[in-house]
């Protein structure tokens, strides 16, 4: 349920970017969420619908791009996706592996409507 804090942070980033770019309305927000980020999309959406009310981001559509977790073996350089359970390098059985991607938690970009000048 730490999604509330995450969602508040998304709102503050979007509102600030809108203000800096003289946006009158944020229409879409594009998020990049790694598989390892333990974020539940529905939960973020639920909080979003409440906390964005009355702000420039009210009604903006949230887009979730999920990035799979990719591991790389430090011993043989083999790259492989993280399965259901954590496993050693399938090629050389080394346990010396690191996470190459899948930890992302980003606001990538937003779409805004500009104020009429």
């Amino acid at each position, binding site marked *: *349920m*730490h999604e*509330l*804090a*995450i969602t508040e*942070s*998304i709102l*503050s*980033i979007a509102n600030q*970017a*809108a203000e800096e*770019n003289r*946006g009158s309305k944020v*229409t*879409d927000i594009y*998020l990049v969420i790694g598989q*390892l*980020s*333990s974020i539940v999309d529905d939960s973020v959406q639920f909080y979003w619908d409440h906390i964005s009310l009355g702000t420039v981001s009210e009604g903006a559509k949230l887009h979730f791009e999920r990035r799979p977790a990719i591991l790389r073996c430090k011993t043989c350089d083999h790259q492989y996706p993280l399965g259901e*359970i*954590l*496993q*050693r390098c399938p090629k050389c059985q080394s*346990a*010396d*592996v690191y*996470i190459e991607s899948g930890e992302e*938690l*980003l*606001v*990538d*970009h*937003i*779409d*805004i*409507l*500009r104020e009429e000048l």
Partner: protein
Amino acid sequence: MPQRVEIVKRIMDANDRLAQNNQAILDQHHVYGINLMASPGAGKTSFILETIKRLPAGIKLGVIEGDTAPVTIDADKIVAAGMPAVQINTGGDCHLDANMIEMALAELPLEDLDLIIVENVGNLICPAAFQLGTHANVLIASVPEGDDKPYKYPNIYRGLDVLIINKIDLAPYIDFRMDYFQQGVELLNPGLKTFALSAKTGEGFEAWIAWLTDKVIAK
């Protein structure tokens, strides 16, 4: 037509910046900070109390207690042990964040302290996402929780600096495969500093206290 605004900003950025600031405050006062995490009932408070009892006399410790409800049971025990404690009531929230720590630090006599232990909310998921600005992330895993926890909660294990395996006095009564548990830990966090101990019997505490004392003196 809507216009695209590129941002590419980490959502945790605001928290992480506050965390950096907290660490600067601790460094300035030469205080070593520990973020102590665990599931409910792993023995966080009794581990802190036993640590207080065994620390060299010159080391002054303060505790920040995170709780989801306004009960001061844990903070009261710390104060009774003669150390300053600040209680943070998260109001149902499942974790502590850097902002709460900043407020709690302001209430502690930092100039008189050498060490701060933050007792995080009992939870293995949410606290892993929030850096607090402490110098070490420490997790207590207790034997009765089972040997599969690294496999089920990989995120919290990946961010650790120290792992405490508590309640080893219960090992004879529980099917806890230490090798299976440690295999999982090794995959997530190779070479992780680990202390196996019992906060009830005091077994295994010497090594932990020696490690902690070194860190505090180095500050």
